[in-house]
């Protein structure tokens, strides 16, 4: 296989200059780029924090005359704590899925080895937990709208929905990616040589998770 560019898409082990897979180098560069994307969103949220001229507000009560009627702080910390936990656990499921693919060839004897070594189970769990997180987000968004906060209401609404919405869109893309991998796994079984395609999905997934770690603190907890 003389063409390294082409070859790498078939075998993870064809020599490249660094010995690393092209796709893994590219996904890390992509993640670096995403840092700036979320930095812009987060900065805007923080810059506009406390500058809305009308309620509802994230952490403060809004009373007349600023608002028509008294509005409670809108962020629901208990619910978001649970969804944060769900997303963290999805990262655990994701690493277990990758480990299962990396060790797909090793014989499994005990039941626990079989469970831990099932890439299908853990890919499914990751996608399920990701979907659960999205469900929480959908619940949060609709309840905000019922309480009178939309993307048009005030600066908080605009920056909050855009920031968390962008994150949600990333989770959605990740879920689709995971479902695709699951479909491939079910159809032909993922082998250790396929580890890299799970690895790049995993890196993306964990990155989306760490972005949420930052958002949870900066948006929800700090006030």
């Amino acid at each position: 296989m003389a063409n390294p560019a082409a070859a790498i898409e078939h075998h993870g082990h064809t020599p490249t200059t660094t010995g690393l897979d092209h796709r893994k180098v590219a996904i890390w560069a992509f993640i670096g780029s995403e840092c700036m994307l979320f930095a812009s969103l987060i900065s805007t949220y923080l810059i506009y924090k406390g500058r809305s001229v009308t309620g509802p507000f994230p952490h403060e009560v809004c009373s007349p005359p600023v608002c028509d009627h008294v509005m409670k702080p809108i962020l629901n910390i208990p619910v978001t704590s649970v969804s944060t936990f769900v997303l963290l656990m999805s990262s655990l499921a994701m690493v277990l899925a990758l480990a299962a693919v990396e060790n797909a060839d090793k014989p499994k004897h005990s039941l626990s080895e079989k469970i831990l070594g099932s890439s299908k189970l853990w890919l499914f769990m990751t996608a399920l937990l990701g979907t659960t997180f999205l469900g929480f987000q959908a619940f949060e968004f609709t309840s905000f709208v019922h309480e009178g906060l939309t993307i048009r209401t005030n600066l908080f609404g605009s920056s909050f929905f855009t920031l968390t919405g962008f994150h949600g869109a990333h989770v959605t893309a990740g879920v689709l990616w995971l479902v695709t991998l699951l479909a491939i796994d079910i159809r032909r079984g993922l082998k250790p040589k396929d580890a890299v395609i799970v690895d790049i999905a995993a890196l993306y997934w964990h990155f989306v998770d760490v972005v949420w770690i930052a958002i949870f603190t900066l948006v929800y907890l700090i006030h």
Partner: protein
Amino acid sequence: MATTAAAPPYVATREASNTGLWSWITTVDHKRIGALYLVTALIFFLIGGIEAEIIRLQLMQPNGTVVSAYTYNELFTMHGTTMIFLAVMPLSAAFFNFLVPLQIGARDVAFPRLNAFSYWVFLFGGLFINASWLLHAAPDGGWFGYAPLTTMQFNPGLNIDFWVLGIQILGVSSLAAAFNFITTIINMRAPGMQLMRMPMFTWMAFIVQFLLILAFPVITIALVFLQFDRFFGTQFYELAAGADPLLWQHLFWIFGHPEVYILILPAFGLVSEVLPTFSGKPLFGYPVMVYSGMLIAFLGFGVWAHHMFAVGMGPIADSVFGVTTLLIGIPTGVKIFNWIFTMWGGNVRFTVAAKFAIALIALFTIGGISGVMHASPPADLQQTDSYFVVAHFHYVLFGGSMMGIFAGIYYYYPKITGRLMSEKLGNWHFWLTFIGMNLTFFPMHFSGLAGMPRRIYRYDAGQGFTTYNEISSWGAYILAVATLFFVWNFVRSRKRGAVAGHNPWNAPSLEWSIPSPPPDYNYAVIPTVSSRYPLWDHKGAVVEFHEGEPIKTARELGIPMPFPTIKPLFTALFMTLMFTGLLFIHKNNWPMAYTFMFGGAAGMVASLYSWLLSPLE
């Protein structure tokens, strides 16, 4: 954008037919994609040039009547947007595509189909943004699109919609290409091609890709806010809602300043290839050139607010950004001196390429010096938004980027086509460009200091701007003539230029060891590199091509080539259609909006899956 699914095992060695329209729209060959970029970007360069000529026609006399204020706004906005996003950036991309794999001794880029995708997105994005002319609704908010002036309240037409969506589309192209080239340069260097042996152009290309991946997300988000404000009623730039009018400016310039280096560093790289060859000497201070490039890029993220001194950020911010801006002058100055020392004591051959390269040194220095003047906030307050600034950035972008790119075109044309461009026509092109460019832009320093503001479509006879503007306009007409010489030379040399041979300039780097034009697989045997100038040092396992030797096909050599594919084109097309759907929202045509948006999105996802699940070769 990496492949998400494993491809089936290697099937067969198939050869693409390499002629005809179909072969061009399905190509995944980095050299052909480079050629597509080159020709497309040159056409956009001509369009942007025509816009500039109309601007100069309007300003030639006081109270010009050639165009209305509205059209004038469209013209200067589209001139800037076209030259930056559709001419200089893709011209640089043409060289990244053509040269980077050749210079590092690779057979293609890391992701050939993603590369084709980048090109098609660029083409469709360029067509999209220019389609606005057909509706006489071309963007008219300046290339910087300052919000809140570009919000619905102040600019309710489709003009800004075209601009916002067009830049968004073009951003996808640049980002996809950047991930591709970062991976290519890190991972596809030939044996022995250590980082510090890479040709300087590849180094500058490498640095620019990092600027791209870090700067473009910021403009993406600023544009998303503007898009949401315009289409969905968010309040990011709504002053009555408490929004800050500086938010856009900060986000824009966090992108905008690195963008300046995205425009100039590739030209620096090209000149660093041209000058050593025509001086017959290695590049002076190679490591310092690399480190100064990195330093320029790094500092480039810490100077953005010098575009905003006039908004009143306070003494601390002004001082910090003033100082970082002055600091950036140091590595840039280092580069200027290194080029001069490269020529010093060399046996300089004054070819057209060399002349353009030397012109870059001189003209960029002038632009650089006026740039350092802006670094001082008090001086900047006098110069900002005046023609002095217009003079400054045309010296760095025309005198710098375009001169470097012309040098690159004359230098690499024989490698791309196998034929030399005419030196005689080239000399006409060079001297007319050099004279025309200085006549156009040098008087702008004076009209600017005399108080002529940018972006005005008329001035009065008694304001003291008349003579300067007249000279500028005559300069611009000379530039138009010069460009005609270039176009003629470019077109005629394709068939009638002298046959070049594989190394017409006696150049030192790897790309000159293979036939011109190179075969689709580039290197029959991947070279082993053991020096920075393999063809001069005759070290390492670099086999130079001998003229007259038969060039074998990939099949004869058993080199598997990637399949041509139309899927990246479809993915790009559907993505553009998806963005187009948003335009209908402002016409309240929701059925069309939904059809385009959801149809485009579905088509894009479908062609993306089909692309990623099909084998590369």
